[in-house]
């Protein structure tokens, strides 16, 4: 298997971010890179752009990276993090409009099969399409 699309999980809560990543690793396996971040530097709730960029770098793959987020700020900060990447990398990172836990598991399952970033995003977003 060649490189697979990486998964980044961004939650306001460090516990949710880590728990979601644990579920992905246990259910899908280790062939997909998973990184997560959540919470602010005081141990409270929040998201921040530098940590999201670190997570993107950690999950980086030549096939791209799909980001799963929870509420409002997680999405806007993730979009900001993408905009702060080098221009040539921006097209390889997408924020998925999907529930964070279900979306992460389904995105990783699709990624493990060697699918493209667009396919991974589409599968994660199948859930929201109703």
């Amino acid at each position, binding site marked *: 298997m060649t490189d697979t699309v990486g998964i980044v999980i961004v939650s306001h809560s460090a516990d949710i971010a880590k728990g979601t990543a644990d579920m992905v690793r246990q*259910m*899908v*396996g280790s062939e997909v890179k998973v990184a997560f971040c959540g919470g602010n530097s005081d141990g409270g709730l929040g998201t921040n752009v530098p940590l999201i960029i670190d997570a993107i770098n950690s999950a980086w793959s030549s096939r791209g990276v799909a980001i799963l987020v929870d509420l409002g700020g997680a999405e806007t900060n993730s979009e900001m993090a993408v905009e702060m990447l080098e221009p040539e990398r921006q097209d390889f990172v997408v924020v998925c409009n999907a529930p964070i836990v279900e979306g992460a*598991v*389904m995105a990783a*399952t*699709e990624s*493990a*099969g*060697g699918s493209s970033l667009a396919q991974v995003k589409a*599968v994660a977003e*199948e*859930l929201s399409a109703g």
Partner: protein
Amino acid sequence: MLETSQADEHTFTSSVRLVHAVGMHARPAVKLTKLAKKFQAQISVRVAGAPEWINAKSVAKIMAMRAAHGSTIEIKGAGSDAQAAVAALVDLIATDFPDGNS
């Protein structure tokens, strides 16, 4: 486990009883989908007698089929490696989704 039947040169169907204690929940669905994706063949599944076949490579649809414990799952494969694909999926379900082959 029932015998595999062959409709034409590259289409195979089989059926297998779902022995997993709580039916086709998330973890088995992920395993089934991942295995299905390893084959080129088009693979679909359904609970026996259901009106629609479901794409075995779509994890969302497999989870949504909510197959119950004890139900019979029909598997259909079409393509050059369909016979191996159907056999592999039957084996996965019949052996209750063992860990380690993902």
